[in-house]
Each structure stands twice: as C-alpha cells, then as structure tokens.
C-alpha cells in the first residue's frame, strides 16, 4: 500500500488570494491604515539616522533615476532602492508593529515596497491600504505555517516572511493576475533571507530593507514575464521544508479571505524588541511605587525562556539595547518611557543606565507566556512590591488608538518635517481619499527657501 500525501498548493492559493477580489473587512482595513501611517512616521523619524544615510549613500553611487520618494528626505531614487532605504529607516527604531502571537513585524518590508509600487503607477491611497492588508495577511500566513522552529533555527521571520509580503502587496498594486502573482511570490520566496543574529548590528534594519527591495523587484520581474518555481513555498526543495521542521501549509491557506491574521497586528508602543514589552509595562507600573531609582537593590523579572533571546546585560549601542531586556527595564524605571530617545548610543552608555542594568535579575519560567512578565523590586528598605503583566502587548488598554497613535506620529515626524507636520498628519488621516503620490509628497521635508 503506497500512501501519497500531496502538499496543498500553498504558493498558488496564496497568489490567487493576493491577486483576487479580496474584500478586506473594515476592522482589518483600519489596522492596515495604522500600519501604513505608523511605518511612514517611524521612517521619517529615522530618515537622518546614520544607518539610513549610509545605506542611501551606498546605493546613490549607482546614480539612479529619481522616480521614488525617500521618506523624510529631499533626495529621490529609483523604486527598488527607495524600498530598500525606506525599509532600513522604518526598522532602525524597531518601533513599527507586531503580530503578538506570531512575533512578526512586517511593516518595514511591506510598507516601503507597496509605497514605491503605488508611486510608480500612481495608485490611490485606498488601493495602498488594501494591498498592505493583503500583503500582511500573506506574510503572516507564511509565518504561521512555518511555525516556531523557523525562528528557533535562527531565521529572522520578519525579514524572511517580509519579502514575500512585500511581493504580494506590490504585485497587487502593479495589477498582476493570479499566475504572475504566483511567480512574484515564487521569486521572493527563493530569496527569503535574514538572520536573528544579525539584528543587533546595522544589518538588522538592512535585512528588512533588503526584503522590501527583493519583494518589489520580484513583482516587477514577474510583471515583465520572468518565472520561478510553481511550488516555491511547499515544494520538496522549497521554503517550508528548507527552513522549518514542521511546515503546516494548511495554516497558510485555510479560510483565507474569511479569517484575518492581519486583524491581530498591534502598533508598537515601545521602540524595542517586542520580547521586552511586557517587562517594560511592569516596570512602568511599578515605577510610581519606588521613591527613587537609587533605592533599587534588585529588580527580579520572570519571563518565558524564549525571552532569553534578549538577555543582554551589556549593550554597547542603541541597536543592541533594543534587544536588551536589562536596558529596557532600566530606562523604564529611570526615564519612565521606552521611546527612541531611550535607545540612543549616548543613553545606552550613560552611567545611570549601566548601573541599573546590573541590578536586573532575569529568571525564566516556562509557565509564563512570551508576552507575559512578572516583576518584583527589592529596595534598600526591603519593600517588595510585585507586578504581573499578563498578555502585555495584546491588551487593549495598551493598544495605541486614535489620538495616542497620532501623537506618536506627530512626535516622530515633527523634527524632520517641521512646518509640514500638520500636512503629513492630515494626509495620514485622509489616506483613503488621497493618492499615493500625495501621501509620499507629504512625507518629505519642506524645500529650502530660495528654491
């Protein structure tokens, strides 16, 4: 008796969903809109960061035609490189969004690719929002089907799934049919790359920018007629078998268009790895009960063993500090926040932060989920207040909504956009009525006087 199990044609089914007449539910559209405008603001905020400018100056040596907007900057470049540089900028602060259960944040790959495709073909803002929702769904389904073993092996799932999400979103904006979309997804899939180990250096943001560029390029190649493997995702030598111990293609394709993983995306309230967020919340809650941080003898944090990925007592740079639970807890007590200014190299190297980091004691408990934390503080007086954060990031009370989101956008964009910040906020609020080009134009700083 021979049993033959044929894997579901995941590549084709995902492509048909991405190219097809999907009706995005309104709550998913709202989430996609938040993902879009948040990523724009985060990228504008990091548009002068040395990592962004180094990436930009490298690709500028190619002397590309200026068809596409660089967020927060006056220069322009070509679509593929705009996707890369904007992707780098959107990831530098690790302040985008997160799907809590899957631990995936796609926006730095997804949004820049979609934006460049939309700008190139003069699409509407509403089209961009739909495409981001659908691209996100494709990327999240890929991540869900690959499962935790993908990450455990060392892959940066946000980058590996991000390139595929970017291809789906940009392919939709280019108007690819199902067959071409399948090829776009195939070409992006065979280029899935990015490592967790690289996230603590300049290569972390670069991986997301590269995913954005690869995704857009894959869609453009497919549009031109280039082809790849029909079963790129589920084939015997495809993504699933190569990068996961137990790929589940059913999770990738079942109930597409009916249930939406994208509905569970959260906008990040803190500018660091999502693994640090529950402990930050606990620290912010305990902070008012500690008279002075100088009184702190020990902070005991209990987390899931997976959170050891961010057990990093001596970060040296802002990028490393975003992956340091000790630093995140320390600045939460010291500064009462965990925003980009808590992760500058100077803040990381400051003596008070270094001193408090040494007092953070991490233990693990597998009964605590990765999005939970338990914290107690021992002060010199011996008081021991306790705080427990359950389902930290997912809780609706910490979700950035409405005004909170827009104040985040404003604070990120204002230093770069200056007097044009109001126009930017308006274009974000009216994204459904806008054209993509209006949106990108509102994301650039004022032209210097005299020009």
């Amino acid at each position, binding site marked *: 008796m021979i049993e033959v199990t044929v894997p579901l044609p995941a590549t084709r089914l995902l492509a048909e969903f991405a190219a097809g007449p999907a009706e995005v539910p309104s709550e998913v559209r709202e989430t996609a809109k938040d993902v879009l405008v948040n990523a724009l603001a985060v990228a504008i905020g990091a548009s002068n960061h040395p990592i962004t400018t180094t990436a930009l100056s490298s690709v500028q040596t190619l002397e590309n035609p200026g068809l596409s907007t660089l967020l927060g900057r006056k220069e322009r470049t070509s679509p593929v490189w705009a996707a890369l540089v904007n992707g780098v900028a959107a990831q530098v602060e690790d302040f985008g969004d997160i799907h809590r259960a899957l631990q995936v944040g796609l926006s730095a790959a997804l949004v820049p690719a979609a934006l460049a495709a939309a700008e190139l073909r003069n699409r509407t803002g509403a089209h961009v929002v739909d495409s981001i929702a659908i691209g996100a769904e494709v990327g999240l389904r890929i991540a869900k089907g690959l499962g935790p073993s993908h990450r455990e092996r060392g892959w940066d799932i946000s980058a590996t799934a991000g390139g595929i999400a970017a291809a789906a979103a940009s392919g939709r904006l280019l108007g690819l049919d199902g067959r071409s979309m399948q090829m776009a997804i195939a070409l992006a899939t065979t*280029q899935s790359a990015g490592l967790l180990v690289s996230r603590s250096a300049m290569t972390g943001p670069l991986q997301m920018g590269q995913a954005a560029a690869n995704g857009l390029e894959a869609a453009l190649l497919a549009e031109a*007629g280039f082809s790849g493997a029909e079963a790129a995702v589920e084939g015997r*030598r495809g993504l699933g078998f190569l990068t996961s111990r137990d790929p589940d293609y059913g999770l990738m394709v079942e109930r597409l268009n009916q249930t939406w993983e994208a509905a569970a995306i959260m906008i990040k309230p803190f500018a660091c790895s999502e693994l640090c967020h529950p402990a930050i919340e606990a620290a912010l809650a305990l902070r008012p009960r500690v008279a002075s941080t100088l009184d702190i003898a020990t902070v005991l944090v209990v987390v899931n063993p997976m959170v050891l990925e961010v057990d990093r007592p001596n970060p040296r740079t802002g990028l490393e500090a975003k992956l340091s639970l000790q630093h995140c807890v320390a600045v939460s007590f010291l500064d009462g926040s965990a925003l980009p200014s808590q992760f500058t190299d100077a803040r990381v190297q400051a003596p008070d932060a270094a001193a408090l980091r040494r007092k953070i004691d991490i233990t693990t408990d597998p009964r605590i989920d990765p999005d939970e934390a338990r914290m107690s503080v021992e002060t010199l007086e011996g008081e021991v207040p306790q705080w427990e954060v359950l389902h930290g990031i997912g809780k609706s009370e910490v979700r950035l909504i409405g005004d909170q989101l827009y104040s985040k956008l404003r604070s990120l964009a204002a230093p770069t956009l200056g007097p044009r910040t109001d126009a930017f906020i308006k274009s974000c609020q009216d994204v459904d009525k806008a054209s993509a080009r209006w949106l990108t134009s509102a994301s650039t700083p004022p032209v210097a006087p005299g020009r």
Partner: protein
Amino acid sequence: MGDKLKRLDSGPADGTVESQIAVMRRLATRLTGLIDEALPPSVEHEAERTLLNVLGTAIFSSSDPAVDQVLVVASTNAGRKVAPIPGRLEGSDLYFAAIATGLAAHLDDFDDTHVQSGNVHPGSVALAATLGIGKIRGATGPRFLQAFAVTCEVLIRTALSLAPAHHKEGWQPMSTCGAIASALGAGVLMGLNETQLANAASIGATRSLGHREALGTPAKAFHAGKAAANGVISGLLAERGFTAVPTTFEAPTGLAAVLARESDPERLLAGFGEEWELMRNTYKAYPCGVVCHPGIDAAIELSEAVGDLQAIQVLDYECHPLVLELVDRRDPGNGLEARFSAQHGVAVALQDRRAGLVEYSDARVRAADVTHLRSLIRLRPRSDFSRDEAALEATMMDGTRIRTHVPHARGSLSCPLTDAELYVKFEGLAEPVLPGASQRIADAVMGLGSVDGLNRLIDAVSPRSPE
C-alpha cells in the same frame, strides 16, 4: 553542535561569542595577504579556462527573453549604464548588469561545476560580480583575474564548509554562498581594507538566496546573477562604513547553522591561498546537469554499436543514485526542463550522437523520435558507481543485449576538457552572437597579464555597433 546561543552580543567586550577571531575576519586577513602576490601559474591558467568558458555561456544567452525581462525592470530602476553585459550592445548599472550577466551565464546550465562542493558553478557568479566593478574602478588585467579567481575560490570553499548536507537538503550553494564570495571579490576591486572586507562578507551573509525548487525555471540562473549583485551591493555598503556582526557566518544560529544541519566553518579557511579548490573546477561538455553527462557519453558510444534504434526494446541506464534524486524526468516539457532530465540526455544522444544546444531546444525535446526513446529507459541506481560513471544496456527486440560502460565522463575531473576542446566549445557558443570574435576574445583572456587587459577584454566581448 555548539551550545544554544544565549547572548547575541557580538564583540569581544562580552567575551561570549568571540573566543577566537571571527571566520570572515580571518578570511579577510588571508585575502589581503594573498592579493599582494601574483597567482601561481597553474591557478592563473585554470582561472583563464574558467573565465573563457563562462564568457561563452554568458555571450550565448545574452539576448534570451529572460535577460530582456531583467532589463525591463532595469529600465525604471537602473542608474547610469556604466557596466557591460557580455554579448550585448548596451550594458546597465553595476547592480542590474551583474544580475543580467550571471543570469545569462548560467541560463543554459552549460557553464562549469565544482562537484565536491555540491555542484557549485563558480564562473557565472564570479564573472557577474567582478566584470562591472572591475571596469568602473579601473582594474588592471592581473588584478581583475585575481579577483575573479578569488571569488571562485571563496564561493567553492564556503560551499565546501556546508557540504554535503546543505546541497542535499535542497539549497543551491552557488547562490546561498555567492553573495559572500562576490562581496569579497568586488571588495578586492574596490580596494577595501581588511575591516571593510570582513564587513562586506558578513553583510553578504545576511542576503543568501536560492532554493533548488527553482530547478527547471529561469529563477535558478537568476540566483547566480542576484547573488553576485547582492555581493556588489554588500561591498558598496562596507565601503561607506556599514558594519555587521563579525560572526554572522559561524555563530551557533548564524548562516552556516540555518543552511546546513552539519557544517564545518573552518573548512573554508583550511589551506586558503595555498591549496586552490579552483583547480578542481570542471567545464561542462554538455548543456545539462552534470550528473547526466556520463549517460550521454555512454549513449553516443552505444548508438554506433546498436545501429538500428527502432529495434531497441528497452534501455537499462545504470547510474549513481543521485541521478534519480536530481534528474529523473521522463517527460520534460521544454528545453529548460530537459536540462534536468537524465532520460532526455541519453535519448537525444542515442538519436543524434551529440548533445549540444540544438539537442536541448524545445523542438528537439518534443520530437517524437526522442520522446519514444525516453520512454524505453529504466533508471538503475548503482551505489558502487561514482558520479561521473554510467553504463547503458540496450535489449533489442530479438533479445540481443548490447552494453557500454563509461568510467569517467568527458569534462569530469578525471577526464577534463583540453584547452583545445574548451576553445571549440567556446567558439560554438560565441560565434552565433559575436561572429568572428572568438579568437580575439580568447586572446584577450590569455592576455589579461597586461595592465589594460580588462579594457581589451570588455571591448572584445562587446558587439561592434552597426555603423
């Protein structure tokens, strides 16, 4: 296996990961020492053979629709067209010229193969990574040939450090390791210092690509070009000060670990610069997967002995087990798929007594005589056979059996193409695109010892614009 990486701090400050100097750093150090010296004459000669061979395949496919499709994307994305694409009148920018060149060079699967590393095709990646940047940065002939040789060598060695698990699992080592090698090759031509070279290689390690699922589609050849282009961009980033985690390659959850269940990063460095793996490169005698080659040799031999092919009842094809794993395709739909069909190679060689590009055209693949012969073939795996070994036995209608055995395929390491045979192959590839230019190109490859050797070579592989 090493301990599960607990802390990701990369530098020596924490002392957690770098108990010794990172592999890419040591590679950069060895490389900077190496490029101060001339290549040993035998290595130089093998590099020239690799280069001539791959220029032939790149030129032959330079106007393939797949290359045109890449250049459509380039039309809205590429910058100044300063980099050449061999065989084409117009080049592109550094990035897109690298993609187009690598794609064309590997498209017909007729380039070269380093078998032990998991069938790496070093020439396509190395040509794409070095030609454009060599021209733009004004490389001398010897420096260009050195960078080309080094790209091949690093690529082969990186793949060897992951072999055999990596290729077997389903990756294409040519491209997964290609960006690292290309970053270093391009970096040498940019004049990067040791620190920059190490960073370029580690940046390249974050942009691996290439699943073997793409076999039989143009994406497989795209892998070669894109790996080279990724390497060039990695070099440009490192030149501007971009940095990477030094242990990106060998960290317990680094590139080597995600790409292969078993790997030996030290294998990359052992004997680097003293013992050249490039010397074990082989040049394909036939435009198809290298495991098909001994079967084709056997079929050409058998064809004469059999005479009347109509009288064959069944064909037993004894082969290395890898043939079943990689190229068992009884009914290829087109020329590209036929390149990974052991059955097609044998059938067409029986019928036509040769297996050149014509024999892998879509028309020939679909022809009735060849389709019939393919249907008679039974693959017989022989675990005692080496990869370049095959035997064919024809059972005739009257019960007569005729058998032929090929211990080493033409073009294999044990039976390499001579310089004269290689030139004949090159001429067959270059003539249709650049009529009358073959000797000039071959002379330019052999003349890379002169300072302006690279300019002469680029001139020779460019079509004369119609006056």
